[in-house]
């Protein structure tokens, strides 16, 4: 059983560019959450997708957007990149609105903005 997978593993962009990160959830899961983890910090919740809709959003600007596809995979898009967007981006999947909220994490995508 494949766990949560993310691509790419690493990415280098320059300020002002746009980036797309991808995530495939664990088999049987149809809810995907995205987190940003800056160096030395805990994860910060960006947003959560279920049934191809954004269900919740953290305190992130509109430059951060996402999408969920019918096969439950998800994309995170960041426009007009800033230096401060450099971080590890983590995708987590879970059962739909599980009351236990147990999330399974992928290995992350390391984004560096120069």
């Amino acid at each position, binding site marked *: 059983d494949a766990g*949560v997978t993310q691509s790419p593993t690493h990415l280098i962009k320059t300020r002002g560019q746009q980036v797309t990160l991808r995530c495939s959830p664990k088999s049987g899961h149809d809810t995907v*959450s995205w987190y940003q983890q800056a160096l030395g*910090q*805990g*994860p*910060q*919740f960006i947003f*959560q997708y279920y049934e191809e809709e954004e*269900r*919740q959003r*953290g305190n992130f600007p509109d430059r951060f957007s996402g999408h969920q596809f019918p096969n439950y995979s998800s994309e995170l898009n960041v426009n007009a990149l800033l230096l401060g967007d450099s971080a590890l981006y*983590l995708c*987590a999947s879970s059962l739909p*609105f*599980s*009351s*236990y*909220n*147990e*999330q*399974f*994490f*992928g*290995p*992350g995508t*390391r984004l560096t903005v120069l």
Partner: protein
Amino acid sequence: AQSVTQPDIHITVSEGASLELRCNYSYGATPYLFWYVQSPGQGLQLLLKYFSGDTLVQGIKGFEAEFKRSQSSFNLRKPSVHWSDAAEYFCAVGINAGNNRKLIWGLGTSLAVNP
């Protein structure tokens, strides 16, 4: 407001010594509590979780945690630390309030293990 506090930013222990990592939470309802571990450059791995029932929960890699409602704490313990336990440890509380369902994280505790 919901929050998670990990008072110790960095801890160093000797291999074979016991370990306790502290976690305090602030949440008005029954909490769902988690401990995750993150090795350098890696994603997050679930160590253990508390949903209900027995307040002492066992996890992987020999870790355990005890939920103490009166102290709003969920401290992680291991009786004998191995060098491979060196990593970042995160405590999290699951928020379930209507459509608001997400994890709130502590800032983490970095564990170093001396040989």
